[in-house]
């Protein structure tokens, strides 16, 4: 135990003495947290629209003003030429083109159906889907009004419809920041912790100081534990700091038990840091560590479900996520913070990570060689 204590003491002295590392550890994640939470949003605020109105009737103008009245649409232009409208989509000035045919009003008045054409820029499929949904909603609303007015002419009957009312649980205002912040926090503490740990051992290899340690009777588990704990403590502190910031700046709800969350974070970080140390024991220089870490982090983060729900990923991807520590924590942090899930709700994830942690840690200890 004392041996481990001496390593931890030494690591902390070195970390806090390094005048370039300290700001990186403390300031960088919080700048990222603030910037990313504001930037990484799927909310549609401004859909640029071009109208090709070939009818120029009262009805067509009503439809257009309906769109103008919506908070999501901005009328960027009004033209008669399809070519011009297409050019605007190509040059990214418009996201959607609405083409109203010249017999639009006539057909509607005589009780026939008229078709309008919507051309949506679908480079970003998600955004296109939302654009489509929003405009369909506007048009359907318009449709209903037309129908009611016309019908009222002839005979007053009541249009019956099913009124759907929504209640959004756990995030009633559909606030995207509340959803994103926990996920981004997970990424930040992992990157800081795992990179610090991974670069540490390999730097001792590059400096040659590891030889001096390898001729001592130190035991392998002592060495790895001594290298893991300092960065674990830093990552946990970082996590606490990030949550506080989230509460103060974004007022994220903390519905569940904080002790439970920190307990889970602790086990999760054991996995992440052990993984970093394992890579570090295998690599021979910092460059190798950077590339291998980059490979794992990027893959794990994108598959973790931070942006896209894991449930909608293909089957094989969901299976791969069994070895993705991010996926476990990403799910659990949102469950505990937003839903207030208790231990029984997350026990599967907890025990899985516990097994994972002991596996990777043992692997790192085994892979650390005192002989070259």
């Amino acid at each position: 135990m004392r041996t481990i204590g001496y390593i931890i003491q030494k690591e902390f002295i070195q970390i806090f003495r390094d005048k370039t590392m300290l700001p990186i550890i403390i300031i960088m994640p919080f700048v990222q947290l603030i910037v990313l939470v504001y930037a990484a949003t799927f909310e549609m605020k401004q859909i640029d629209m071009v109208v090709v109105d070939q009818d120029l009737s009262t009805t067509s103008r009503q439809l257009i003003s309906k769109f103008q009245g919506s908070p999501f649409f901005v009328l960027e232009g009004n033209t008669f030429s399809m070519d011009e409208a297409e050019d605007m989509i190509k040059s990214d000035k418009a996201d959607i083109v609405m083409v109203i045919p010249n017999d639009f009003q006539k057909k509607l008045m005589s009780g026939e159906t008229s078709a309008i054409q919507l051309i949506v820029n679908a480079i970003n499929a998600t955004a296109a889907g939302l654009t489509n949904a929003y405009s369909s909603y506007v048009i359907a609303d318009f449709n209903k009004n037309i129908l009611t007015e016309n019908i009222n002419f002839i005979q007053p009957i009541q249009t019956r419809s099913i009124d759907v009312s929504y209640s959004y649980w756990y995030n009633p205002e559909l606030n995207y920041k509340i959803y994103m912040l926990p996920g981004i926090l997970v990424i930040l503490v992992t990157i800081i912790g795992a990179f610090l740990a991974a670069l540490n051992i390999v730097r001792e290899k590059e400096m040659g100081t590891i030889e001096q340690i390898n001729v001592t009777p130190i035991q392998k588990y002592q060495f790895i534990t001594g290298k893991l704990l300092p960065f674990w403590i830093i990552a946990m502190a970082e996590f606490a700091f990030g949550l506080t910031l989230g509460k103060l700046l974004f007022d994220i709800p903390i519905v569940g038990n904080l002790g439970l969350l920190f307990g889970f974070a602790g086990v999760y970080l054991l996995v992440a840091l052990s993984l970093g140390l394992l890579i570090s024991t295998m690599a021979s220089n910092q460059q190798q560590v950077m590339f291998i870490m980059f490979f794992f982090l990027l893959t794990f983060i994108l598959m973790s479900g931070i942006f896209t729900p894991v449930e909608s990923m293909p089957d094989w991807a969901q299976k791969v996520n069994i070895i993705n520590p991010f996926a476990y924590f990403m799910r659990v942090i949102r469950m505990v913070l937003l839903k207030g899930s208790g231990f029984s709700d997350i026990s599967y994830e907890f025990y899985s990570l516990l097994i994972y942690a002991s596996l990777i840690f043992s692997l790192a200890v085994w892979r650390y060689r005192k002989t070259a």
Partner: protein
Amino acid sequence: MTDKPIIKVVNLVKKFGNFVANDHLNFNVYEGEIFGFLGANGAGKTTAIRILCGLSHPTSGELEVAGFDVYKQSEQIKKNIGYMSQKFSLYENLTLRENIRFYAGIYGLSKKEINIRMDNLLENLHIGHLRDQLIGSLPLGWKQKLAFSVAIFHQPKIVFLDEPTGGVDPITRRQFWDMIYQAAKDGITIFVTTHYMDEAEYCDRVSIMVDGRIEALDSPAGLKQHYHAENMDEVFLKLARAS
């Protein structure tokens, strides 16, 4: 120096692929002696020293260090040896005191013991003022001397020095050897590699390695007599040219 061997090496072979770095080495090192391990760059000195320290595995051969078997008891050996590598190996961003505390702590010395020995060390070397200086800010000569002091801080039976005086001036080298003599007087067996032939004269016995083999092993006086040479430089050149 006694006639009790503290290092026994029988037929040590180390191969890297087809390259034979150590070709059937045989020698004993006796308790309390200063054993010089000489050879040109690439002769295989560092390879042998790393094997004896348990940093590398031999391909074949029987080896015993401080009474322990190199294959089976390498951790026991590590408790009883000190090592100073070619690469300077104290932490540059730690102070002298922090470096000593760290290494001594790993060797399991008690806090009290560490403090007593540290005070003695600082006093003997008259370097009380360097105590809280970062190692990185010290001149190379001092770094080497301090690395040696740290290597023997836990009072090992044997200390392995791999070209400890590389790149330092003659005066510092002389001081360094004074420290080695002092350590030998305190009962530590010294195993030192060098390619400075004047340093070979300071050793009790020297072995000269050429291309992975030990070509000669005797006291400096004995070697000079056998090869009809004025000094160790000539002995070495005669051996190296013969190969």
